[in-house]
Structure formats: structure tokens, C-alpha cells
């Protein structure tokens, strides 16, 4: 009897955890802003609501770690079980709306062969960059030469836009997210969304 009880607790725990998180209602989608994607299409920040979303910020002219950054995300994506991968969306937001136009973002997407049915490269309006960085716990600073100094982090949002995980350091963050997606029992896997 005790054993069954224990098993029950162990089975139930992941559910109760994910419920507790959504009950707090810290959805980033409460922040409203318009984004423009690589096709020049305008959309709300919550464009991927209903899907777990991997979000990260970048700027296209960064020649040191940004190419690496997309590779890390692609590798993370490839490690996911295909059933999960189909549900996941990936949203990359530019720090640099002055330079990262739809044309630039489209080129970058093609260069890296990104699956644009699941990936979006977007730029926000100039006045909303810092808000988005603040919401995603990014530290960034424009440099005199036009580039940016910034932390590299990856954030995982649940279907409602609540942060499930956010971690600095690309490689570690990507590994953590793969692990979380393996373990986490999302409502979508039960067909609730």
C-alpha cells in the first residue's frame, strides 16, 4: 500500500509542479508589442501562444558568437524527440532593429537553412527592445562601433508564455532545455491544447 502511494506521488509530482507554475500567471504575453518577421509580416509577441517557445535575442551583424548561437539552437532542436519538436517554436528577437531588417533576417534564415514553419527571426520596434531584454533577463549595451555587448541566454516559455527555464551561457542552456523537454509533462502531450 505504502509503495503504491509512493509511486503515485512520484507520478503526480511533475503535473503538480507545472500547474503551480501556470497558476502564478506570469505570462510574458501580458507585454504587448508588435514584431516584424523575416518575411516582413507583422505580428503580436504572442504569435506562438499555445506552443512551448524557445526564445533568444541576438543581432545579425555579430560575427563572434551569433553564427555559433544559431548552430547551438539548431543542434538543440535536432536532439529533441520528433513528437516534441513538432510542437516547439523558436523565436529569435533582434536587439538591432535599425540594421536587422526583414531582408537581413531572411538572408540569415536561408543561410542557416532554418525551418521557417517553426522558426521566426523578428525585430521589435526600436522603443521596445529594452523592455523585451528586461523581460527575458538579458543584459545588453550598444557599442560605439554599432555592435552590442550582451549576455547570451536561452529562455523556454510554456504554452501561455510563462518562463519555464532561463539560463545564461548558450551550450549549458541548450542542454538544460533538452533535458527539461524530455522530462516535462506538458499539457500539450495530453492533448489539452
Amino acid at each position: 500500500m505504502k509503495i503504491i502511494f509512493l509511486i503515485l506521488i512520484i507520478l503526480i509530482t511533475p503535473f503538480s509542479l507545472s500547474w503551480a507554475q501556470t497558476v502564478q500567471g506570469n505570462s510574458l504575453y501580458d507585454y504587448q508589442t508588435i514584431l516584424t518577421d523575416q518575411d516582413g509580416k507583422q505580428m503580436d509577441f504572442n504569435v506562438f501562444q499555445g506552443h512551448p517557445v524557445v526564445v533568444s535575442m541576438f543581432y545579425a551583424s555579430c560575427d563572434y558568437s551569433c553564427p555559433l548561437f544559431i548552430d547551438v539552437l539548431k543542434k538543440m532542436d535536432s536532439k529533441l524527440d520528433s513528437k516534441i519538436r513538432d510542437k516547439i517554436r523558436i523565436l529569435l528577437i533582434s536587439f538591432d532593429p535599425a540594421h536587422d531588417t526583414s531582408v537581413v533576417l531572411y538572408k540569415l534564415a536561408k543561410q542557416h537553412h532554418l525551418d521557417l514553419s517553426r522558426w521566426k527571426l523578428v525585430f521589435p520596434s526600436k522603443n521596445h527592445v529594452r523592455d523585451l531584454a528586461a523581460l527575458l533577463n538579458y543584459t545588453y549595451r550598444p557599442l560605439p562601433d554599432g555592435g552590442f555587448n550582451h549576455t547570451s541566454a536561452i529562455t523556454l516559455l510554456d504554452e501561455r508564455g510563462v518562463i519555464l527555464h532561463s539560463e545564461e551561457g548558450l551550450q549549458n542552456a541548450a542542454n538544460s532545455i533538452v533535458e527539461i523537454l524530455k522530462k516535462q509533462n506538458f499539457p500539450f502531450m495530453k492533448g489539452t491544447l
Partner: protein
Amino acid sequence: MNQFLMIMLGLSLTMMNCHSGDPIEAILTDAPNVPPPIKRNYPAKIIAHLEVKEVTRPIADGVDYTFWTFGGHVPGKFIRVRQGDTVEFHLQNHPDNKMPHNIDLHAVTGPGGGATSSFTAPGHESQFTFKALNKGLYIYHCATAPVGMHVANGMYGLILVEPPEGLPPVDKEYYIVQGDFYTVGKYREKGLQPFDMQKAIEENATYVLFNGSEGALVGDKAIKAKVGETVRLFIGNGGPNLISSFHVIGEVFDKVFTEGGTRYQENVQTTLVPAGGSAIVEYKAEIPGTYILVDHSIFRAFNKGALGMMKVEGDENKAMYSGKEVDSVYLADKAEQTQAIAQAAAASKKGTLTKEMQIEAGKNLFMGTCSTCHQNNGIGIPGVFPPLANSDIVNGWDKQKLIAAILNGLSGPIKVNGRDYNSTMPPMSQLNDDEVAHILTFVLNSWENKGGVVDTEEVKVVREATLRPPGAAK
């Protein structure tokens, strides 16, 4: 087969439940107390909550300082875990605090010893988890910019990682951490004293203290043991700058686990404790009496406060020791002194102060402050330090001039009892008005001097009439 699997599963689940399933809230203690030894024979998940508080409290009698603390006191709370334990650490930064803080535990293997994961704004909490891989006694401290200042304000403590088999049982365990402090005012200068960054950079400590305040381990607060008991001291040194030469007067350490590590040395008189390091000291209390704990860089003990006491109670053992207490010499200017002075201070407040009380308090203040130069019997040293006994200056000058000499010092050529002197007496303005009055009353009524009384008001008037450079004691 199925049944067998179920049993195996059940077994492993039960084991998980008892071994690492139930997290244990860590017992944390304030110095000089140590949490009880760990009786567990398996690694567990430990949850530790440590709250950072910025508090203003006495650093010495009549002197306040704003300490930054792990848990409200200096040193921070003692943490005790077992090797192999997984520690879920919660660092809480109290909402009333002004500064962000973090924690670097030297017991942690990982970037910054936890500092990167625990950086916390006021009114917030950080959580990180580490595995206690190495046994030993480790310092923890704050590592927020400016690191030196956070440490100098008292942000350090000890974490003990016990070996799986535990430490050998002893009768008493105590927790003592030395630290150096830097204040704008000089040693024992009254009032709220701010941190002095220049002195800290120059490593010119105003105070060197055990457990964060002068008197934290003396009188009623002395650590205690009975004859025949084995005592274990967990010694840390928070720094920020000074290395401690830790010594207990009249005691030989049977064992010292140097630098808090695995091996021990035997029969040690004095052990070095590095800044940001530790030592475990064990000895048997053999002879009753009061034992003095010092940093044997000895000016720190008698002029900067690095002094504590251990009281051993029990029957005398004449075969081992003849009976004259070792502390009588050292305590002449400490323990007895404070009693007479405290009595005088209380009487002064109540308005029942007598000349006799003043003389008694003055005598105790004189011994230890003035007697260094003027000698216990007031005769001074001919040609170097002028005499106060039967002195034409003491008997010839008016009270105002005598008070001013103490408050402002004296330097340059002077003739006393027919002999020429030319040296410098430093200003003693750190003494409060009561203390100056007591000392002068004592001097006037000793060694065939003319007699009389100096009261607090008279000192106050002279002090207020004297201009002082900015930053000096008033």
C-alpha cells in the same frame, strides 16, 4: 517475475525515501555555538536558509558599527553538513538592506563557490544547490563588489563538512572567527563609527576581534568547560587582511587540524589561521581557571581587542599546576578594571557617584592606559616620561590645564620636579568625560598629590572649548 520487479522497485523507492527523499532543514547556530554532530550514516538533501541583515550594533563598549551579516551576527551562522550531502542553499537579502549580496562558500566546487548563482538584490532570494564533495572546515563569505568592504563589514562564517564517519566525540564544541575592522575613529573612540576604506587598503586595522565585537567572548560570555572535558574549537579567520596567530594562554593544543584540513599536528602552542581559512583545535581542559584566547600578534590582543576567555571549572590539580592563575597578570587591565568602571558609570548616571568610586575607577583606567608611560606608581621614567607622583605640575596646574593635557596631549620641552623632558604625549580624546574625570581624581589623590575632585562637567566644558581637526575624536 512481475512480483520480483515490484519488490525491487518498492525496495529502491523505500531506500530513496529514507536516504535522500526527505530534505532536512539545516540547524544553523550563532557563534560561539555549534550545531549538534551529525548522526546520519547516509548522505541527505539539506536545505539551508541564510538571511543577510545589515545591522548597527556595538563593536566595543560605547562604539557602534554598521555590520553586514549572514544571519544578524558576526560571524555568520555556523553550517554543519555531512560529506556527500546535497545542499539546497537559499540566500535571502532582507528587504531593509541597502546592498546586494552573494555568498562564496569555500566548501563549494563550482564557479565562484556559489557567488555567481547567489547574487541577490535587497528584498529578494536566490537559490542554488551544491554537493559537499570535500570534508573539512571552510570559510564562507560575501563576494559582492567591493569585495573587501563586504568582508570587512563582517560578511563571513564557517561551514563544516563532516567526514562520513563523523568527527570523534568531544565534550564541548565552540565556534570562533577572527576578523579585522577599520573605522574612521581610533580604537574605542565613542559613537557610530563609519568604515574607513583608506585604512582597509593600508591594512591598518583599528580592531582585531573574535566574533565581531570586543567582549564577545569575555566575562559572562566566555566559553566554558569542566576539568577533564575535551574541547574542540572551530576557528575561522574572515580577514579581510590579517593572518591570525591563534593561541590560548596556558594551554597546549593536543591536536590541530591545520587550515581545517584532513591531517592533524600534535602539541601545538600557536597555530596560523590564514585570512579566508580555518583550523580545528582540540585539547583537554586540565586545570581550572580562566584561559585567555589571543591573536599572539600581541598588540592586536591588548590594543585592538583580539581577546577572548575560556573558563574551566572543577577541582584544582596541584600536581599539574601550583594554582596561581595564569590570567591574573593579563586581566589586571581588563576584567577587574571593567567592573569598577561600570560601577562608577552606573553611579554617575544615578547621581550617587562618590570620590572613592571615582578613585577606584580612575585607578583601573590609569593602569593600562597611563601606566604604560607614567608607570604604576606614577614616578615615570626620569628624563623620558615625567612623574605624576608628588609632581609640581599635577599640584601646580589648575584643573582645566590638566584636563586639556589629557584630551589634547602635550609635546615639547617641559620642566617637571626640576628635570627637563622633551617628548610627546598623544591626545587621549578617545576617553570619555567620565573616564578623564576619574583618572584625574585618582591622580590628584595618589602619591602625595594635593587631592581634590574633577567632575564630568568640568571635562565636558574643556572638551567643547577645544577645536579639533576634522575626523579626530571630539
